């Protein structure tokens, strides 16, 4: 069974150590939630796994289906089935959603294989309809001038089009209105049944009532300090981070 394995991962930026020995295994079809205070290293973890060049992995490993991906370029990791829904998606002026996704889909085809434009647009429109994104967005430049919520929906649209095996979703819920949250959650749940594994970073219990996680992890200062089932999120919400700090973090 396909799985994404993070093994005793240490990540630093420059001299500064951010992720300090984190282990986690996500299997196909599972949803893992990571919660933790600001600045604890959640986004760093996600970007390092995706291969961001600013982050150095000083020790540990990341395995996709048993094989280390650390030597792979970010685009190779992506084509191998890893998707990152960014907390702060970049704006790419002048590059339309339609052209960008088309290039991304084409990049996944074999050599000499040509993309079927009609089929591509049909699929794109059906995913947009599912996520209730206006079809006019196809010709808009990616994230350029998008509202916060539009950016997040656009991330999910890309995820739906690229059909990854594992998705790292970094605060996809922040910025979404209530309806959009439900739409996005429905989208993720639909993909989940097709064996998508999800690592979901969030601050809010609310998302987890729509996308019910199999596992919840609490992250503190670069490490996972507690793991549990969905009830852990409720407990965390009730008790706050002081509880984590005082009772879970080894002195």
């Amino acid at each position, binding site marked *: 069974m396909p799985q994404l394995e993070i093994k005793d991962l240490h990540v630093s930026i420059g001299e500064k150590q951010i992720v300090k020995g984190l282990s986690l295994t996500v299997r196909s079809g599972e949803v893992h939630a990571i919660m933790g205070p600001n600045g604890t290293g959640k986004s760093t973890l996600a*970007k390092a796994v*995706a*291969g*961001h*060049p*600013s982050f150095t992995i000083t020790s540990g490993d990341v395995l996709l289906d048993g094989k280390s991906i650390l030597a792979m*370029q*970010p*685009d190779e990791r*992506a*084509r191998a089935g890893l*998707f*990152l829904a*960014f907390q702060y*998606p*970049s*704006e*790419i*002026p*002048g*590059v339309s959603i*339609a*052209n*960008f*996704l*088309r*290039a*991304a889909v*084409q*990049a*996944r085809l074999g050599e000499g294989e*040509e*993309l079927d*434009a009609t089929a591509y647009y049909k699929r794109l429109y059906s995913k947009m309809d599912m996520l209730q994104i206006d079809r006019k967005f196809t010709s808009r*430049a990616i994230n350029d001038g998008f509202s916060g919520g539009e950016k997040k929906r656009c991330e999910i649209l*890309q995820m739906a089009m*690229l059909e990854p095996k594992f998705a790292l979703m970094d605060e996809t819920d922040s910025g979404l209105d209530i309806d959009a949250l439900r739409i996005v959650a429905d989208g993720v749940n639909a993909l989940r049944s097709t064996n998508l594994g999800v690592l979901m970073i969030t601050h809010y219990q609310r998302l987890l009532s729509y996308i019910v996680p199999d596992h919840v992890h609490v992250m503190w200062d670069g490490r996972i300090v507690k793991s549990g089932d969905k009830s852990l999120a409720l407990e965390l919400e009730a008790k706050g981070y002081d509880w984590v700090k005082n009772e879970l973090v080894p002195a």
Partner: protein
Amino acid sequence: MSDVTETESLEPPIADTVDNPVSGIDQTAGNFSYKMDYEFDAGTGLSEKTVRYISSVKKEAPWILEFRLNALKQFLAKPMPTHWATKDLENINFDKIRYYLSSGQKPKRTWDEVPDDIKKTFERLGIPEHERKFLAGVEAQFDSEAAYSNIKDIVSKQGVIFVNSTEGLREHPELFRKFFGKVIPTGDNKFSALNSAVFSGGSFIYVPKGVKVAQPLQAYFRINAENFGQFERTLIIADEGAEVVYMEGCTAPKFSTSTLHSAVVELVALKGAKIQYITVQNWANNVFNLVTKRGVAHEEAEIKWIDCNIGSRLTMKYPGVVLKGRKARGEVISIALANDGQHQDTGAKMIHAADETTSNIVAKSISVGQGRSTYRGVVHIPKHLKGCKNNTECDALLISPNSRTDTYPAITVRGDRNSVQHEASVSKVSEEQIFYMQQRGLTEGQAMSLSVNGFINDLARQFPMEYSVELKRLIDLEMEGSVG
């Protein structure tokens, strides 16, 4: 005499992501050359003898020889413009250049008559196919002379003249002489003087009153020989109310020594006429490309330059429009891509000389690696005029930390009855943007290519489809190649 030298095999370009890909002229396939025995060769170096040789081979009228010899004097007398331009100009060795190479002065009217090697060259570049598909006429210049030149019957029946400059001078001397050298005088700059001394090839076009040429006319300039200088001379006259679109493409193989391309292009748009001049050039990175281009727009006439500069070692080119008649319009759309070791020094000149004239300049430059791009603009509106407008927009995109861009706008607008708008921006492709695109599965090269294409997208959309596809392909190739 045939012997193809493949200097380097180019990788196939990545697939287009344009919605309806059409195959354009394939300038990406330009890196090859044939060993030729040239029947006419002016030898190496430049002297009065060289000039006399060229003129006699062309059997020119005495006034043309006079014109050339006078130009040679001016060329020799003028200093290199290194007080404002790059010192790299000093590396041009005029004594090592061959100024005239041809296998005959009369171009063929059918591809069947074109000698095999030359025909093969243009076939590899996709010209004959392109001609069949969407052009009203084609001129294909190989080194100094046109090897092929033809115009569709339907267009020539309208009275349109489309020949090379050699034929133009011979067959339409009065018309030619009336306008020749009037828009760009010999002494305009050192390189216009050089061109005036040794010019050969280029197009002569006359579109009669009220005739609108439906399809574009195309010229293709090919350098095949090493150490060669190509000096085409183009003159386009659109009579009152006439309309024409002219497109040029240029390539040369990658030689180890440098090559010089120094053209002069003059446009005359008489009352109410429209000329659109489109260039997409992809010179090898050792070509000095020093070109003077200017048009005169009479009353209510319109001249639009679309100028895309890719490749070359140094390009210096500032297409201009002299807005001579009331309500004349001028436009320059310029795209320049400077890769490692290249300097694109480009811009535009708008000289307002009548009331209610308008001009628009949009220049976008991209610097990659150690590439350097410079924008130089001149907008001149004298005080006594009224109702004139200029809009200038120049945007630079830097791809790497070492890339460089400079902007030198010179806007002299006098009087309070005229208006100008000037905007400039410099942006960078950030590491975050590249990572974002890579995370979606695109390689670093594809990601850069996409951002560059995005940067020029609003301009490229105005081009004929074949040319925007071509431009995109060239950019993709440049960007793919720039990733280590």
